[in-house]
């Protein structure tokens, strides 16, 4: 790894950029994040507010909220994911075309928030789909969402397309679709997707 880096730096001195393609690729992806047009709860109001004139998500090239998951790049999970809604959220994620990203906005989407003890709320959407960015708050200010999107852009620019530690969508071993939970007798079945989340007693999480 480090040798690669050294070699690249050395070559860059002579004007050869091995990572140019990767940079262009990442630059394009990061600057054209079209969110999926859906909102779940109160955080959706803040998400809508972040597209308004005062905050203007459009400055980042993200004001085009696509209604169809096929054309969206970014899924902003904005609000409480109830057990009834979780299958739809996972299904929408599965329908999105790669490369796709997920931003969990607000306490409820991250962990269940104030309702995490409730019988009807999913304790964090990251149990079912891989989340790239977490934006805490209840709800987060529009600026916090903008900050989260800037953070996501930086994350994308740092992603690698080959070699170890490459981006999720570039890795053939990583799944692109996840099992859709269904309502069981007591809880959703499955309770979590093992590819994305491991409960604490299996050595994941806290």
């Amino acid at each position, binding site marked *: 790894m480090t040798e690669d880096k050294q070699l690249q730096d050395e070559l860059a001195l002579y004007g050869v950029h091995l990572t140019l393609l990767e940079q262009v690729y990442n630059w*394009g992806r990061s*600057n054209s994040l079209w969110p999926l047009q859906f909102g779940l709860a109160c955080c959706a109001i803040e998400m809508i507010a972040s597209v308004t004139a005062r905050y*203007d998500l459009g*400055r980042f090239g993200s004001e085009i909220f696509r*209604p169809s998951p*096929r054309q969206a*790049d970014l899924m902003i999970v904005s609000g409480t994911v109830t057990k009834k809604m979780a299958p739809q959220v996972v299904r929408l994620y599965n329908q999105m*075309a790669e*490369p796709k990203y997920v931003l969990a906005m607000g306490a409820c989407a991250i962990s269940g928030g104030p309702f995490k003890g409730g019988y009807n709320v999913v304790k964090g959407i990251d149990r079912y789909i891989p989340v790239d960015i977490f934006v805490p708050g209840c709800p987060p200010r529009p600026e916090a969402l903008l900050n989260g999107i800037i953070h996501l852009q930086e994350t994308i620019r740092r992603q690698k397309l080959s070699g170890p530690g490459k981006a999720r969508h570039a890795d053939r071993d990583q799944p692109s679709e996840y099992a859709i939970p269904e309502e069981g007798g007591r809880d959703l079945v499955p309770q979590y997707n093992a590819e994305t989340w491991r409960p604490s007693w299996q050595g994941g999480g806290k």
Partner: protein
Amino acid sequence: MWLVIIQLKIGIILTFFSLLFAVASLAERKILARIQNRRGPNRVGPCGLFQPIADGIKMLIKEDVVPRKADRALHFLAPIVMVAPMVLLFGILPYGGGLTLVDLEVGLLFFFAVSSVSELAVFMAGWSSANKYSVFGAMRAIAQMVSYEVPLVLVAITPVMVAGSLSLVHMVEDQAGYAIGVIPNWFVLTPWGIVGFLLLFVTSLAEANRTPFDLPEGESELVAGHLTEYSGFKYALFFMGEYFGIFAGSGLAVALFLGGGGAPLPLLQWIPPYLWFFVKLVVLVGIVIWVRASLPRMRIDQLMDLCWKGLVPLAFVNLIAAAIWHYSGGGWQGWILAGGLLVGAYLMLNRVVLRSRCSWERKYYLAKS
């Protein structure tokens, strides 16, 4: 030599329209933002100028999803059938100044014949996606395009009647020269011309599925209409086809009513005609964007009402007015007769529509008013 020149012309025209596509997609976002008191894309490159490039890269590398139940062949063909005719249309637009590619004797007929193929593309896209929203969107789109083609053709016939030719180049030549030395002889500066131009503008908006006629893509009820299952580059092609349709429609309006490459003042004739043509085209595209930012989407019954009860009768009246104008020699008698007819039609429409609207009482079933 002849082949090289032709290829050069094709290259110039295609480059211009591709560039215009990129610029228009950015300008649309910027202008929409400005109208909504926002700034719009400004973080990618200077003033957000590289935003279309970023979007293009992203579209290119986005996964191409084809639903399992979709009809793969038609799903693949639809975007191509959408874009190809639109590109063909650029071939016959009369840019003037030697840039005109083909002077077809039946230019206008060619325009409508080729542009009507895009309806089949919409159908192919909607049906092949195996998605009910796509089918509904396609049905709406086809119903709308078929309906609006009637007033579109009726309106486009008026300049044909006056100029006496179907050739777009001939029509532009017919609008050359200046009355009283300053006022250009454009058709838009006649009573039937201004009405015809407005009708043509409205109908070509509907043909291109643009706001306020973008019902086929109404996201609140149809997700994205016939585009629902398209991702990545195929979606970009549809997007491009829509924009090319707007450019071609604007080009037709420029050729039919705005004097093609003619300068608005005799003083400005030293500027080459194709530049004038492009300036007028860009202004029209700007107005299309402006309309999008101003007007809300119509309902499907309003859309059909507008077409069959508003635009088609108006187009007929306009045809008669143009005939009167033509046979009265285009002098002051023409202004009085044709203008009077059109103003009368407008007044009548005004009376009928607004009166019926005033006497229309809303019924409340649950709320007691």
